[in-house]
């Protein structure tokens, strides 16, 4: 049975740029799919195609059992979208914003009013409900935007980089809200640039780059594929690099890489903190002085390097702008 969100062979081209180059996705009901990738990878374009904002050049998409291309307006009744920008009217109060969205979801005025009050309460915005949202903090605006997406409690939610630009406290808060949503049975597709976020929230992760899904699996599977944890050591004296290398070669699970100019050695490991302690003891026993040592977990960059052989680099931001320009 196809999932609550199902896409096959989505292609979307802007001028010369293939923003989506044959994307397949499947999100079973009640689960969270994290779409992970750098700027310009095609994440936003995928969300825009699935939420009826863009028509793909080819491919098919079904959301909440409804064909996105054939019945876009039916799909709109069953989805909530929370974008990268907090899309609320800054001159309207929080309450006015939510009432407006409710009415445009075809609720009766009275019903929209009651729902707005309820959501303001739940998103800790009741005190600020009658202030123009211009006066809200970034976190408050993001919560209002999310509340607007939840006005009809849609069975399927799309969130495009929900926490980009938020401080850690607000990010944490938003994560909690998202987790509650999912616990309530909502199916969610979320895009993010942060592996940590996908790790925390998503059941499955799709890594996208240049409009293609280049890897998919659970967070653990991806990390295993990336090589898992590694130990990084910066030795104090350049002469000690050789000796340190011997120590790491003995304890690590792969090839040790050395950056001469920074005196940094890196080796993949398994065993976590316990192994780190071992490395420190051995280095100490050999009298190797160290400036820094640590256990590093894979970052998005690591996943990218291992999957594509290139960094999730700045060049992608440029191609993102090309995409914008092509529109």
């Amino acid at each position, binding site marked *: 049975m196809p999932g609550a969100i199902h896409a096959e062979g989505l292609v979307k081209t802007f001028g010369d740029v293939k923003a989506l180059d044959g994307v397949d996705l499947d999100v079973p009901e009640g689960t969270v799919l994290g779409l992970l990738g750098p700027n310009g990878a095609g994440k936003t374009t995928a969300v*825009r195609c699935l*939420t*009826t*904002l*863009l*028509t793909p050049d080819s491919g098919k998409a079904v959301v909440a059992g409804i064909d996105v291309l054939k019945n876009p*307006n*039916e799909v*709109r*009744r*069953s*989805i909530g*979208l929370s*974008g*990268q*920008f*907090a*899309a*609320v*009217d*800054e*001159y*309207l109060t929080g309450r*006015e914003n939510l009432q*407006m*969205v409710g*009415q*445009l*979801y*075809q*609720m*009766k005025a009275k*019903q929209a009013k009651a*729902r707005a009050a309820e959501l303001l309460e*739940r*998103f*800790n915005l009741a005190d600020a409900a009658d202030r*123009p949202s211009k006066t809200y903090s970034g976190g408050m605006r993001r919560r209002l935007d999310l509340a*607007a997406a*939840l006005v*009809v*409690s*849609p*069975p399927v939610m799309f969130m495009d980089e929900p926490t980009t630009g938020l401080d850690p406290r607000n990010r944490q*808060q938003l994560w*909690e*809200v998202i987790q*509650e*949503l999912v*616990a*309530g*049975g*909502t199916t969610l597709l979320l895009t993010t640039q942060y592996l940590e976020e996908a790790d925390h929230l998503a059941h499955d992760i799709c890594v996208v780059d240049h409009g293609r899904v280049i890897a998919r699996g659970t967070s653990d599977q991806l990390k295993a594929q990336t090589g898992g944890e590694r130990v990084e050591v910066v030795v104090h004296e350049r002469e000690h690099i050789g000796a340190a290398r011997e120590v790491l070669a003995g304890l690590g699970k792969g090839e040790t890489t050395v950056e001469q100019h920074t005196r940094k050695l890196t080796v993949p490991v398994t065993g976590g903190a316990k192994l780190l302690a071992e490395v420190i003891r051995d280095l100490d026993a050999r009298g190797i002085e160290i400036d820094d040592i640590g256990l590093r977990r894979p970052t998005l960059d690591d996943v990218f390097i291992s999957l594509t052989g290139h960094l999730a680099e700045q060049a992608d931001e440029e191609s993102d702008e090309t995409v914008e320009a092509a*529109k």
Partner: protein
Amino acid sequence: MTAVTDTPRPAAPRPAGGIGQSVRDSLVVAKRNLIRMTRIPEMILFGLIQPVMFVVLFTYVFGGSMQIGDTTDPDVYKNFLMAGIFAQTVTFATAGAGAGIADDMHKGLIDRFRSLPMARGAVLTGRTVADLVQTAITLLVLAVVALLVGWRPGSAEPTNFGKIMGGFALLLLLGYAFTWIGALIGLSVRTPEAATSGGLIWLFPVTFLSNAFVDSSKMTPWLRHVADWNPFSATVQACRKLFGDPGLSPSDAWPMQHPVWASLIYSVLILVVFRTLAVRKYRNASA
């Protein structure tokens, strides 16, 4: 934060589609835009200052040196001028509509609206209707100022209240049609700033290559031709006729001979064409 989820509500307690939904959705969006206007009162203020300034400048600076027909009487020019200023003022609403819609695009609000199960043209209709309300207010204030500086409807031909209201109705229709041009501009440019200047620049030649501020029968022949057939001139001529103002163009051109019909036809044509284009553009809009 307490639980966010609850029993899903029926997504569509109202029947979908139809004229009823279009009207409802448009009104919801119009209300939103009107609330915005009250929260940015300086916008309305600036919208008023400019035409009032034009009335005063044209009346007192140009008034004494303008020949209308056979006369250079400043009082005749004053009465001649007002229809032109009114018409120019209503067309300037174009820039406001364009800037507002470009701003909505820029801020992601258009994306939000487009992801909602609402009537297709409602976002643009709501915006243009709100602009129409603002134009009506501006026009009312402007008419009062015009009366204060000495505009007297019926100074050249007899008129009555109904005809005068008819003139204002034509002005509002022209303004409404032009806001759809603004809507299309707003959807086509990248920034609200570009929409403001892009919405204004072309209005200067359109409003000046006309009978609005000078006696077009004194223009060089090819310019006179342009002025006679300019849709904008038709509304100005219609208003002069309905207001009983002096300086009707004696031209044989059809729009000058039948200005009320010409004004209606032009405005409806502009409205239909640009509404169609703008709504199509909206459906494929992306920020």
